[in-house]
């Protein structure tokens, strides 16, 4: 067992973990932040996407030890208190979710897309950029709409993901 210090959603945690602990296990089991989900074991579904030092990462494919010293934002840290992040709001407004299981990863990826590609996103770009996130409920139609709208709203001065800054 070794100590890992990570800042998660702005709060520093020092946790004793076994070397084989994945970042997602640290988040879900040690910190009990269960919004980050695990939907596959081949690093494809993206339900586990979080931001590490400001960029989207599949937390099921990173050792907790490797995250030592990093700043992590999970879905729980995206809203500013009770004010939802514009991307969260856009997913609700455009019915970009059904069962909700892929949603945290989708939203974290969507925010990352905007951080990288800006706020004017066409449908083709959004679909391409969602390559690493699988949804079984929505057929992606409304997710694509939500990401486009969320991106525009983020430009409108709303605060992007907290990590990284």
């Amino acid at each position, binding site marked *: 067992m070794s100590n890992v210090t990570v800042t998660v959603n702005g709060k520093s945690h020092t946790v004793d973990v076994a070397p084989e602990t994945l970042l997602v296990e640290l988040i879900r089991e040690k910190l009990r932040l269960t919004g980050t989900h695990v939907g596959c074991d081949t690093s494809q579904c993206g339900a586990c996407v979080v931001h590490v030092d400001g960029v989207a990462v599949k937390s099921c494919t990173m050792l907790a030890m490797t995250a030592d010293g990093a700043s992590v934002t999970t879905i729980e840290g995206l809203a500013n208190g009770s004010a939802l992040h514009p991307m969260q709001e856009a997913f609700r407004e455009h019915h970009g979710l059904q*069962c909700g299981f892929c949603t945290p990863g989708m939203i974290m990826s969507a925010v990352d897309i905007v951080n990288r590609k800006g706020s004017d996103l066409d449908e083709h770009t959004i679909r391409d950029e969602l390559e690493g996130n699988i949804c079984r*409920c929505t057929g992606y139609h409304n997710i694509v709409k939500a990401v486009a709208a969320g991106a525009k709203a983020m430009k409108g001065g709303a605060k992007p993901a907290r990590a990284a800054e």
Partner: protein
Amino acid sequence: MSATGIGAAVRRKEDQRFITGTGNYTSDISRPGELRAYFVRSPHAHATIKKVDTKAAEKMPGVAAVLTGADLANDKIGGLICGWAITSKDGTPMKMGAHPAIAADKVRCVGDAVAVVLAETLRQARDAAEAVEVDYGVLPSVVDPAKAAAKGAPQIHDVAPNNMIYDWHLGDKAATDAAFASAKHVTKLDIINNRLVPNAMEPRAAIAEYDQGNDALTLWNTSQNPHVARLVISAFVGMAPEHKLRVIAPDVGGGFGSKIFIYPEEVVALWAARRVKRPVKWVSDRSEAFLTDAHGRDHVTHAELAIDANNKITGLRVHTIANIGAYMSTFSSSVPTYLYATLLSGQYAIPAIYAEVDAVYTNTAPVDAYRGAGRPEATFVVERLVEVAARELGLDPAEFRRKNFVKSFPHQTPVIMTYDAGDYDASLTKAMDLIDYKNFGKRKAESEKHGKLRGIGFSTYIEACGIAPSQAVGSLGAGVGLWESAEVRVNPTGSIEILTGSHSHGQGHETTFAQLVSDRLGVPIETVSVVHGDTDKVQFGMGTYGSRSGAVGMSAIVKALDKIEAKAKKVAGYMMEASGDDIEFKDGKFTVKGTDKSVGWGDVTLNAYIAHKFTGGQLEPGLKEGAFYDPTNFTFPAGCHIAEVEIDPETGKTTIAKWVAVDDFGNIINPMIVEGQVHGGIAQGVGQAMLEGASYNSDGQLVTGSFMDYAMPRAADLPSFKVDTTVTPCPSNPLGIKGCGEAGAIASPAALINAITNAVGHENVPMPATPSTVWKAAQGGMKKAAE
């Protein structure tokens, strides 16, 4: 229409927790002192179990227990059952083999559980599972349903000679044969309806806890119907009396049918928790899900359509071999029979239909209902036949369909169903307008200029939903009734809890059900909450599948609301010193007819509980009513999907250029949610037609055992869809609604394959039409054109 009432696109109440990561899925739950369970699973498709040696595993760090099938049998825990009895042609009952939750003598598919390890951590349990030594006697296996009943095929269950579970039929054989004998044209097709893995994004999970003091068990599981799970685990598995078993299905991350069934792992978790007197948590990983979730479809079909000189369809006959897998899952027997053959009339007036279905065991994972369950298979048969027939006869596929549509209602088909309402012309016409059918030729020419093939395909589907009238399904072999329950609890302050036997795992019941109540009682939607998924809270319910929660679940709420209104009127009457019969209720206000005397909702609810205005002899205090609603007929959603594709013949890559869906779901409560259901259904149907296919090799190993080999639809595989509706209200339920959950998955595979075959110029394109398949087909098409 109010902003939160029936017909409004109300944003979902449940979303707040899902978009903030505060949902509560089974795997999010941890119980104090819990052990983690990991199953030892068979690597062989078919083998006898000679010996299971757990000694080494038991000594490993953190291990609390290693349990086997023998232990399960010693504790007299019963096996899993299939709850729908199907009878063969000769009147004999289906041949159901035993299905122990952990195999003791023999394994019948890869992934069959042979032991379970309970340990302090998941890794310890998994390490120890590798130390369990199982001595197998490997047997030959069969995975192909078409070969399962062949002479010399390996025998999977002793009770089912030749692996034949039933050979069932429906319809009038003589009349159908006569129709074919006098037909001018016969269209014939051989169809494989490919095997699918449902892959809800949340893998299955179960946590069981034993309360020693009360000798009671609690199970949290990923279920679409917790009450049915409790009933089966209690009455058939014999785990515990029903009142000593609580089943909670909290937030469930998608089901699509696969979470209807009662699975071995939840039985084992309960049994193990009681044995070791500690909570036991099992969470499937995706690889395990591929092996152990019930799969869908897997039919091998020969189908024929008879057409007379006037281009009218006169007969249809079908022979289908349905793969049930290694064991009969909970509703597996009904899927290829009463959920399939009863829909073979499609939207058409067909005088004679005859269907034969052979259900067989194979050494593969169990097969059961998956989104659409039988109806996608039926629609694929009918809509491929009709499309191909039109092509063979040189007719426009739309006009050939139109000519044969059912046009007057009610319409009795030759395969049990009585269609109650519909307007198939209307949805076809609207869909053709939306896709700009008349200019398809121009678009095709444009594609050809760029070396691309373009095709268009129709699917005018029908489905039977609102499952189902209990007496009717009982007469067809169902082991349960298929009504739904509701309880409306009005609090003294006027807020309302709706307890429903339906279960939401993405469908948005917390919103639509609240819309109904808000609309009906004139109360703010925020004051209504929906409670579901807990057998201790909701008395009984049948759960959510078969697009039934609107038509059946909400109808039960309507019935309970009727009773609430009647009683509230009485309370209001006592408050205003008028007879309850003279009270009118509108927009949340109770008024004495013909006067301006009125009281509000909150006043009445409070008075119902303080009970100062009436005596106990006059009226019972309180305001809580329950209802059970048993439908009087199925509902019949129908519509038209049109797919337009462009194919790169050099690579076989198919791009969906356009997709139009016009559905008739009757009245709609929340159009936003309904559209979402259609989108998701289409995506799953497109997945079936172009991407997905579970494949076993001849040794019974699942070749497509992860997302690396099983192609899940991604965002870039799909277009945006153009979705619209037509409305003929359903006459058999109070809300006039039909159901929308499965339509997309039912309609879309045929539309897409019809479009692809149209593009390549011949009919030989199996599902999934992957790039390599389409490339080959396109080569064949070009060769054919050159001849």
